[in-house]
């Protein structure tokens, strides 16, 4: 099934719903309606002044109407309507039950693909991916055939002035958000309404608008990744050479002492010749020396006392003790860029996983320090610092819950649970603080715990899962997370006034992830991809073994499929026009007819063509096809990275056991509110329009939603 376009056609802006359509002062002054015959200059000045005053007054009308109007949105990533209903019926979620009784509850139609960056971008902007330009976690630059994060991009600093091993950039670098469109709270801000936006995904760096915002998912860690933990072990050979989302370092225990380093970001003030260019020079090759920036490091020492079952840590000028299986508080870490002059501030937590017989130490991704942020993680810039002074340091990077550490066996399930609960409690404290100090017109608070918990704990709950594990505590883990969010809702309901519109929503729901689909392998089997060396099918990085001249399409990202188009892809082989269209038709049929030979299931239930099915200026910039997998299936983790595992269909036995990056119709989110919902099938884009409508603000013509909340009496 394709995404119904008719549903978009219904989404007209509300007629007569916004009697005070704002008109700016500039619009009024330059409107032909205000043109008058030539008058005395003094008269003209007076008239202009009066007009400006009138227009200022007119532009303030929406604010006046909205005076006292407050809306709070509790955004719970990944809360599923069926699970919610089940837990409510079991009596585990009294606050949700009460809110449903007071107002309404509906599944909330999510986006295609139902990935968090895509769905939250739609919620923010009221546009589909064709409008906001976020189609996946990962986008591909077809001219280089290189993957990149879809959410934000770093801008390099100015041309450096080099002096030996020193390098001084003439201007600082920056970072910019890749999402297009105006967020609804910016639109509220244009009407003088203030918002507090706490950890909204895909809002790094936070957009500027009246009020305050802290960036959420998509915020990098200090080294610029979306979260890279460090794991120090004295038995390096027991671990794989490299893992995604983390670095494993071998250390030596000498006289009960471990000396190691925290690896920070590259130091752009220093440069050293690369080993390669020095080697070439040594061999007599006439090459110009190439330089690279060394990483900034911070030494630390661990003094082990196995008899006590604890160790003393010395990190910079800080000292602390950890017992085995114990977490530290946030430790301030400083990296020296220019000795005695410039430092880069960060924070990390240490977890002493094992002292003996093997030494194992986990360190969280290095955070951008909220107390002294090196990148703009909040708006205004010092808000992260203000929060820090009230709450202490906190996780600032992308997604705090370290699913990768669990996935790669660095954490056990219980350790992951403990770390996840710590992150949840930080959010909980932040929400209490925000509720206590809420003086803005609009408040949004985001919780990601349910999403991350459902990803990693599904196999404990579901005996049908290929990776099912019996664990008396964790089999109820997802239910416990829902209960915890119910407690949060209880706090919110107690804190807000009766007049406040309360919306609890999620960006998507959840489904089990039983079977992995290696889509690139399937495309290879079907003859759409040709490898340069078929004997090396399972080796190589990001399509490095692909013969592009004989390849028609490839899969990248969790749902994306790209045609190898001439003029767009680096080694394009398919001509635009009839060949492209025929191939698209052929692929659509083949994908929908795909069968898992092990059980005759159909792994794909939906094929979407963004160029046809989406609206907006960005619709041509995404994949050519979005693949919607059936319940139980999802893309493997290897295929999105341009790899070709041997089998196209594999049982998923990893802890990442629940998912939502499938057919969007299978995984709607939730909409629970203290207002009546006028539509049986509200969408994320509808919610955006409805929130604007609360303040009497009309949607823009690019927005595809409609008003679905019944006006309050």
């Amino acid at each position, binding site marked *: 099934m394709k995404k119904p376009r008719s549903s978009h056609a219904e989404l007209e802006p509300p007629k007569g719903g916004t009697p005070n359509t704002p008109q700016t002062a500039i619009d009024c002054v330059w409107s032909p309606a205000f043109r008058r015959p030539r008058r005395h200059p003094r008269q003209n000045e007076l008239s202009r002044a009066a007009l400006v005053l009138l227009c200022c007054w007119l532009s303030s009308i929406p604010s006046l109407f909205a005076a006292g109007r407050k809306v709070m949105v509790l955004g719970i990533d990944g809360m599923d309507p069926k699970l919610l209903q089940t837990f409510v019926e079991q009596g585990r979620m009294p606050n949700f039950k009460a809110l449903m009784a007071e107002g309404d509850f509906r599944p909330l139609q999510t986006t295609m693909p139902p990935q968090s960056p895509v769905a939250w971008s739609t919620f923010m902007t009221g546009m589909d991916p064709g409008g906001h330009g976020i189609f996946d976690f990962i986008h591909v630059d077809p001219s280089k055939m290189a993957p990149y994060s879809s959410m934000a991009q770093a801008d390099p600093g100015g041309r450096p002035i080099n002096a030996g091993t020193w390098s001084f950039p003439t201007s600082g670098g920056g970072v910019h958000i890749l999402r297009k469109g105006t967020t609804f709270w910016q639109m509220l801000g244009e009407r003088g309404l203030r918002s507090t936006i706490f950890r909204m995904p895909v809002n790094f760096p936070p957009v500027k608008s009246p009020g305050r915002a802290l960036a959420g998912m998509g915020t990098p860690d200090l080294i610029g990744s979306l979260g890279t933990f460090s794991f120090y072990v004295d038995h390096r050979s027991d671990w794989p050479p490299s893992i995604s989302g983390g670095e494993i370092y071998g250390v030596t225990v000498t006289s009960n002492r471990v000396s190691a380093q925290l690896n920070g970001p590259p130091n752009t003030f220093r440069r050293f010749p690369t080993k390669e260019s020095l080697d070439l020079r040594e061999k007599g090759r006439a090459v110009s020396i190439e330089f690279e920036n060394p990483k900034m490091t911070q030494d630390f020492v661990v003094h082990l006392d196995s008899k*006590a079952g604890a160790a003393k840590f010395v990190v910079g000028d800080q000292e602390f003790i950890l017992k085995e299986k114990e977490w530290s508080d946030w430790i301030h870490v400083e990296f020296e860029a220019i000795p005695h002059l410039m430092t880069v501030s960060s924070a990390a937590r240490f977890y002493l996983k094992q002292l003996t017989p093997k030494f194992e130490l986990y360190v969280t991704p290095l955070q951008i320090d909220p107390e002294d942020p090196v990148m703009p993680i909040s708006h205004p810039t010092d808000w992260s610092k203000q929060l820090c002074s009230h709450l202490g340091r906190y996780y600032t990077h992308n997604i705090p819950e370290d699913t990768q550490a669990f996935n790669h066996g660095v954490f056990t399930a219980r350790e992951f649970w403990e770390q996840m609960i710590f992150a949840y409690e930080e959010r909980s404290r932040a929400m209490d603080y925000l509720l206590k100090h809420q003086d803005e017109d609009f408040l949004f608070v985001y919780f990601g715990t349910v999403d991350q918990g459902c990803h990693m704990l599904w196999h404990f709950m579901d005996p049908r899962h290929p990776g099912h594990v019996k664990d008396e505590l964790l089999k109820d883990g997802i239910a416990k997370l829902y209960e915890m969010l119910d407690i949060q809702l209880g706090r919110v309901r107690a804190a807000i006034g009766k007049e406040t519109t309360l919306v609890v929503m999620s960006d998507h729901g959840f489904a089990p992830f039983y079977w992995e689909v290696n889509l690139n392998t399937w495309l290879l089997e079907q003859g759409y991809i040709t490898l340069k060396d078929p004997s090396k099918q399972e080796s190589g990085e990001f399509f490095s073994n692909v013969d592009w001249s004989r390849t028609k399409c490839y899969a990248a990202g969790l749902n994306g499929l790209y045609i190898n188009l001439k003029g767009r892809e680096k080694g394009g082989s398919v001509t635009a026009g009839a060949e492209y269209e025929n191939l698209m038709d052929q692929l659509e049929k083949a994908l929908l007819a795909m069968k898992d030979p092990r059980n005759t299931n159909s792994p794909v239930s939906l094929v979407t063509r963004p160029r046809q099915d989406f609206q907006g200026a960005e619709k041509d910039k995404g994949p050519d096809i979005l693949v919607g997998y059936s319940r139980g299936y999802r893309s493997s983790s290897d295929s999105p990275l341009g790899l070709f595992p041997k089998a196209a269909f594999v049982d998923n036995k990893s802890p990442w056991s629940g998912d939502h990056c499938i057919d969007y119709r299978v995984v709607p989110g939730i909409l629970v509110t203290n207002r009546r919902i006028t539509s049986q099938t509200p969408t994320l884009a509808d919610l955006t329009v409805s929130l604007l409508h609360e303040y009497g603000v009309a949607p823009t013509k690019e927005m595809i939603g409609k008003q679905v909340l019944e006006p309050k009496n």
Partner: protein
Amino acid sequence: MTSAASALNAVFNLVFGVLYGMLKWLGPFWSLTGIACLTGILMVWIFGKVSNQTAIERTRDRLSAELIGLRLFKDDLRVFFGIQFQVLAWTFKYLRHSIVPMLILMVPTVIILIQLNLHYGFRPLRTGESALVKVKLRAASAMAAESSLTLRAPENLQVETPGVHVPDLKEICWRVRGVRDGRFDLIVSDGKDSIAKQVAVGGRLEGVSTIRTGESWLSCLLNPGEAPIPVQSVIESIEIRYPELDILILGKPMNWLIPFLILSLVLGFAFKGVLGVKI
């Protein structure tokens, strides 16, 4: 020497305790401003008393005259350079008149800085907050008897970890957590002797002694918060790693030393006319 240092500490602790007690209700910044003001005035007054004011005044007048000369004779290079030499010579004379009073001023300045660090350097633990207790032994050989070295804490303080022995550094460390507000004694015992170390939990602007030491008269002077550890003890020092106290200035946290130095200099200069002191 150590006992003399202890006696001096007792006197200074009393004086500053009274002064601090009178001002601490103002909060960290304003109480520090008050002390900086008094310090500035005191320093200028002492400078006036210990310096040759007549000589300083004469030297300054002469320097001013030479500087005027520089402006008047800037077209005559020979005279100009002659005056330059005079300026240099009189500047050295000025420094000569100032150096002795400055050296004398260093004594009260150091005492004041030590006392202020006691009150503004660190803050007490908050309830629920943890800190490292570090016991340093005099000799590595004492580590052999490590099993008998124990830490006892009152109910208001929770000892969260066993003692972590670090033979390289001759240290044994514990982690303690404040349970209730107050000032308590931690007792470190080697089986024969017991040494107490004060711990502060809670309270607004309480001065805290970070370390109890007894190795020398100098360390005793530098750490005046508690009586020195007897020399016969195997324990060299007991330290508690309290969090630093930040003074908020325009919302920015700052170490106390920066505003103190600026304020005492500015306020001292502001009062020199009133005190009739030439600097």
